[in-house]
């Protein structure tokens, strides 16, 4: 158990074992438990593309103050097999404790304190060998809770989780928890423990990025999800499907991602809000219809949750290397919106916003997340619904359509946005076409008509308000060093702020939630303040930095870039160390001044 230097209790548990043994449930259960007790939790899982066997692990970080990400180290390691000790022993803090499976480890000869326990035997005694993971949960609780108060909370959680399966299952699981708890206590194993107390009840939610995306979409009125399963996006399909009857949403799993994307274009053209979700490989198949949606000006929302590529890559691992891909995918030039939520809350709010923007601008909106954000559970404030308002843009009501004469679907307007009438409404008959077309939708190859339509489409996003797309600043905006990041890297970056603060180093984090349309002016205003910039992203080629440089002339030296692409998210400590390194080296950022002045002075 560590407290992090200013008496804030902050500890992390790693549970590891073969796939199929309920490892992930250990983390989720601990997370839910402490969440209910008013603590802050963050989980982060690491698993292989295997259903049984191999190695799975889940990290659960628990803190009495708000946390934004995982830690690189853990205080308690639950090892259901020997491999888990070998993989994670080096992640243990100095006074960390290992609770290992006695059956799998005949001789414990590691430097850290270890408690051997026969999980399976104990679980079997409680009714089912499957309860092994609950024995493990009990062991963890015994190490951190003298008062048994956690057990009361846990009982309720297990009732909710397993109630449907019957009383026996609930009791069996709870008995397994108690058995683990008592074993650790009775064996008089003393570990330096932190006091765990229930805090005031807070209005918090505990969920993953993918779950927040589903909730945001439902709130935004999504009516169709067409999705082909692909890690790490699959839980969007499963979660939405579980709500389809309650919320009158149709969820379809078509034959492939080509069908998914085409289906949502058809649905969008017929007037509903439709969603698809996938990872990079599936997005590759969707690209064809992405351009179709753009030229036909059909609103649609696509979630792309990145994993390690290229090709099949490392299917269950984290990466941020599809940024350039989603920005440029498809033949031809057209405007699109690329949103990169940075945390679970932003997954909710920005998915909601994505549907409004798709309809307002009648163009595809891509929500780019990644494995880390998609599958990590985070404690967040209860979502605020007050500010949320559905904006269907220029979609005409039946009454408005009735008054229309001489309708032109692709009417050239100053804003580039044309009134929309959908099939079934009066006076709007037209063809939504994948071909270039004139104002009526009829195919054209006339150079003048072509110019008109390309420019009309381009105009739609030319004046996109930078209040929406502006990066957000965290930490100390007046520091002389800023960490630049996009997407989920915000989470470890926010933790890095805390680490550096303890060492007396002030830092700003500048986070991009929108990459297209790129907020050029806001970027120049914000980033020109800092002497030192550190760019952090989970890809090899600093894709975001390339975008930044292209749009603003801000050229962050190679040594100021932190790139990670080994399948793990970047750890907060790695960002903190990079900042210290750059401050020490005094590695300044180049600015192509002429370019900047021409824009800033505009």
């Amino acid at each position, binding site marked *: 158990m560590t407290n992090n230097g200013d008496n804030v209790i902050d500890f992390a548990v790693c549970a590891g074992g073969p796939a199929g043994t309920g490892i992930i449930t250990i983390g989720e259960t601990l997370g839910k438990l402490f969440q*209910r007790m008013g603590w802050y939790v963050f989980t982060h899982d690491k698993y292989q593309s295997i259903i049984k066997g191999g190695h799975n692990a889940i990290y659960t970080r628990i803190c009495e103050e708000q946390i934004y990400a995982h830690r690189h180290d853990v205080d308690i390691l639950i090892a259901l097999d020997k491999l888990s000790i070998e993989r994670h022993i080096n992640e243990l803090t100095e006074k960390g404790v290992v609770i290992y499976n006695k059956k799998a480890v005949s001789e414990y000869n590691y430097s850290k304190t270890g408690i051997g326990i026969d999980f399976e035997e104990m679980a079997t005694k409680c009714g089912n060998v499957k309860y092994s993971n609950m024995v493990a949960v009990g062991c963890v609780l015994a190490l951190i809770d003298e008062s048994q108060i956690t057990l009361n909370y846990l009982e309720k959680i297990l009732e909710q989780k397993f109630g449907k399966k019957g009383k026996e299952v609930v009791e069996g699981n709870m008995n397994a928890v108690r058995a683990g708890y008592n074993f650790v206590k009775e064996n008089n194993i003393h570990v330096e423990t932190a006091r765990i107390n229930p805090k005031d009840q807070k209005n918090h*939610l*505990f*969920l993953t990025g993918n*779950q927040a995306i589903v*909730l945001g979409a*439902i*709130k*935004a*009125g999504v*009516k*169709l999800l*067409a999705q082909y399963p692909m890690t790490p996006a699959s839980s969007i399909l499963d979660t939405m499907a579980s*709500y*389809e*009857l*309650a*919320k*009158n*949403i*149709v969820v*379809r799993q*078509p*034959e*492939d991602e*080509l*069908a*998914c994307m*085409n*289906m*949502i*274009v*058809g*649905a*969008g*053209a*017929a007037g*509903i*809000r*439709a969603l698809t979700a996938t990872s990079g490989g599936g997005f590759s198949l969707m690209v*064809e*219809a992405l351009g*179709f949606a753009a030229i036909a000006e059909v609103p649609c929302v696509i979630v792309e949750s990145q994993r390690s590529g290229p090709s099949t890559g490392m299917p269950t691992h984290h990466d941020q290397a599809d940024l350039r891909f989603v920005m440029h995918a498809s033949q031809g030039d057209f405007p699109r919106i690329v949103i990169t939520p940075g945390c679970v809350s932003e997954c909710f709010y920005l998915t909601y916003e994505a549907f409004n923007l798709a309809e307002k601008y009648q163009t595809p909106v891509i929500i780019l997340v990644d494995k880390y954000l998609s599958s990590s559970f985070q404690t967040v404030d*209860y979502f605020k619904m007050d500010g949320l308002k*559905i904006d269907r843009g220029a979609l005409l009501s039946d009454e408005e359509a009735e008054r229309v004469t001489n309708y032109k679907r692709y009417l050239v307007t100053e804003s580039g946005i044309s009134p929309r009438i*959908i*099939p*079934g*409404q*009066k006076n*709007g*008959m*037209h*063809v*939504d*076409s*994948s071909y270039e077309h004139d104002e009526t*939708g*009829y*195919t054209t190859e006339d150079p003048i008509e072509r110019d008109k339509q390309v420019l009309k489409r381009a105009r739609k996003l030319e004046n996109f308000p930078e209040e929406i797309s502006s990066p957000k600043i965290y930490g100390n905006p007046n520091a002389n060093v800023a960490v630049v990041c996009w997407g989920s890297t915000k989470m470890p970056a926010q933790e890095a702020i805390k680490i550096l603060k303890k060492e007396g180093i002030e830092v700003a984090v500048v986070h991009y939630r929108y990459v297209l349309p790129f907020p050029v002016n806001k970027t120049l205003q914000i980033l020109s303040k800092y002497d030192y910039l550190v760019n952090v992203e989970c890809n090899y080629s600093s894709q975001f930095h390339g975008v930044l440089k292209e749009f603003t002339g801000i050229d962050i030296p190679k040594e100021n870039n932190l790139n990670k692409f080994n399948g793990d998210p970047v750890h907060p400590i790695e960002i903190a160390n990079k900042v210290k390194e750059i401050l020490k080296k005094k590695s300044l950022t180049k600015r192509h001044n002429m370019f900047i002045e021409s824009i800033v002075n505009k």
Partner: protein
Amino acid sequence: MATVVELTSKNFNQWCPGCGDFGILTAFKNAISQLSLDPKDVLMVSGIGCFGKIPHYVNVYGIEALHGRALPVAQGAKLANHNLNVFVFLGDGDGYGIGYGHFVHACRRNMDMVAIVHHNEVYALTTGQTSPTSPKGWVTKSTPNGNLELPVNPLATAIVSGATFVARGYAGDIKHLTDLIIAAHNHKGFAVIDVLQPCVSFNPQHSYQWYQQHVYKLDDSNHNKRDFIEAVKKASELGEKIPIGIFYETNDVPTLEEQIPQIKEKPLVKQDISNVDISDLLQRYL
């Protein structure tokens, strides 16, 4: 609700004079008129090929989608508003080549719509390459030494894949084709009409004259369209003569839409989304 003249759009028709597409267009407008469908409730979805321009020539709603992808687009539109009368137009390359995967799945999905396939045995818009329906040995621009592959059998594929109405028409017999389209529309479920059509520019082998001599009507034989096995056999017939008419029809299979309680009361597009309450869902995450 609309006469054939009212259904005819003012867009200039770009097909070659004499193209089989004209017969299909005429039969389609006849059918819509005779069915008294309100044009605003008709949605034509086409793929890409010469035939793909067809929505531009009819005064109804249309989507000219991508090559091979008309079916999933049509399915999305139908799910959004199942009150629409959806007609999908495919080509033999479009529907049976690049889009054959979607075709098979559309059959087993059994949504209530009509798919009309313009089947001319050649890629005409790209000026005459082989098609998945081109007979073995045919010489085309892309097979100067003869086509090495066997043609697909779309009707047998449709029947075994779960389509609930499977027919073949001929673009040169407009009355017969009109009746097929009407029957297909009146059928509840996924209806496929494979329409043989001459390509006057790139398929000299199978001209109007050739078809005239080779097609015969199933109605004139004693074919039982309710018999699955007989239908598959008939669809696999590779004789001198080519049967046209309804090969297979069953009313025993529910449509996809009928099995979706979410749209029982109202189509999705008519459901209010102005303030969706999710507080019940958020409870689960407390």
